């Protein structure tokens, strides 16, 4: 039984990491239907900038703030220099641009920072807590809490504010959005900046657990993407549900089935879920009238 709880805890920890990354996809997707493959790079930036700033003697909270700021700037630059000029390009072309951006950002990070792995101290120490016989890193609570805060903020923003509706409207119908007076360029910039901030925030929270380096983005983006799709992309609640579920699948898969095939197990479950619910668990059901 303590094993079960340990698996549960480790699943939730990893799942919360995925959930945080998945949440980052939500804003850009909601404004543009584009899955931003450079999202993982924002997570990397969050971690790496914090590491280097605090190594340079900046106190940790300030370093974290700087990291978020840097990521937002990079997110806005990504929009202004790469996405906005490609106005009118198809979603696939935009996705390739984000792939290019992720290669570029990784290349830049490897020059600006280095190619080593780095860590951040846990926010509340490393003494594990004992819960039902399972050992929990205190940092896990930070990650879970961070995911909870962001999902709440995003949910309220998208569902309860006019600006949030404008974001959804921009994705739903760009032309109509312009016709009702929405400045779609600003909305997109907001989405990219916001996503970058979420990504950086995620990077700062998870680095004490996962460590970071210039190239952590790729796999995190991949897992985050899988989590977002499992939950139903565009829906912040879905992103969190998908992330936690993916983490649990991996942990229980590793614990009870086979650690080698845990990813396989996770993906088979994802395929099965999509088979039953083609829009993910909590995806917006698309209404297409003819």
């Amino acid at each position, binding site marked *: 039984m303590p094993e079960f709880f340990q698996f549960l805890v480790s699943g939730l920890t990893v799942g919360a990491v995925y959930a945080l990354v998945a949440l980052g996809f939500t804003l850009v997707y909601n404004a543009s239907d584009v899955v931003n493959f450079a999202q993982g790079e924002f997570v990397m930036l969050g971690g790496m900038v914090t590491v280097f700033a605090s190594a340079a003697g900046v106190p940790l909270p300030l370093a974290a703030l700087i990291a978020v700021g840097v990521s937002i700037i990079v997110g806005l630059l990504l929009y202004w220099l790469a996405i906005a000029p490609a106005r009118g390009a198809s979603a696939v072309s935009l996705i390739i641009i984000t792939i290019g951006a992720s290669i570029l950002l990784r290349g830049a990070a490897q020059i600006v920072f280095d190619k080593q792995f780095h860590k951040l101290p846990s926010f509340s120490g490393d003494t594990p807590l004992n819960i039902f016989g399972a050992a929990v890193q205190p940092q896990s609570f930070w990650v879970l809490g961070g995911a909870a805060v962001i999902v709440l903020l995003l949910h309220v923003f998208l569902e309860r504010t006019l600006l949030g509706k404008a974001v959804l409207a921009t994705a739903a119908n760009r*032309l109509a959005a312009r016709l009702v007076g929405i400045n779609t360029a600003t909305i997109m910039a907001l989405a990219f900046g916001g996503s970058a901030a979420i990504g950086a925030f995620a990077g700062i929270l998870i680095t004490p657990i996962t460590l970071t380096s210039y190239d952590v983005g790729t796999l995190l983006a991949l897992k985050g993407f899988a989590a977002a799709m499992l939950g139903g992309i565009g829906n912040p609640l879905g992103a969190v549900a998908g992330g936690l579920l993916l983490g649990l699948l991996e942990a229980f898969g590793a614990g009870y089935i086979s650690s080698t095939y845990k990813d396989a197990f996770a993906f088979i479950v994802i395929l099965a879920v999509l088979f039953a619910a083609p829009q993910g668990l909590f995806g917006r059901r698309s209404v297409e009238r003819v």
Partner: protein
Amino acid sequence: MLEIANLRSAYGRIEVLKGMSLEVRAGEVVALIGSNGAGKTTLLRALSGVQPITGGEITFLGERIDRLASHRRVARGILQSPEGRQIFDPLSVEDNLRLGAYLRRDKEIDDDREKIFRMFPTLEEKRSQLAGGLSGGQQQMLAIGRALMGKPKLLLLDEPSLGLSPLLVDQILAAIVSLREAGITVLLVEQNAAAALEIADRGYVIETGRIVHSGPASALLSDPRVKSAYLGFD
């Protein structure tokens, strides 16, 4: 109120508006008629700033607006109910209407929405449903309602009666008349040319990107050339 001088616009290499000049005076209803592909929709899109122009000038209330971004034109009071309805499918009917008033900051938004609901009671029944599930005509009502939510000074209507039941066509036409009474200027594109000219003050006839006739609506209605080309024989 609105002055268009020698407006040109093209899709790629194909020029669709070939130097169009027309004017709309404050408080008027002006009808634009023309056959499929004449360029009516293109003109309205150019006025709203969602279609690039290659030449000419657009002046609105004494201000050049042809270089303004679309949202700035909306802020100046130019709203459009576009061809093909272009509603926000995944949002609710209410949200669609609320977004129509996106740039408004006044307190009457909710009242105005109720007014729209009184105008189109079917929409009220569906107020919290996703707009994508509406029937074609209901979507058309929503598109018109959304444009009205923006408190237009100049309302651009691209085939507002399209897909509406005859009863509703009556209502829409009546509504346009009452809009004029409320001081709103309307530029109306309509395939139902006879009906449009009946309520309009003046009209323009467009053929392949050029204005070929213009004048008071009543004169156009009785013009034999217009009759044979757009009104049918009866």
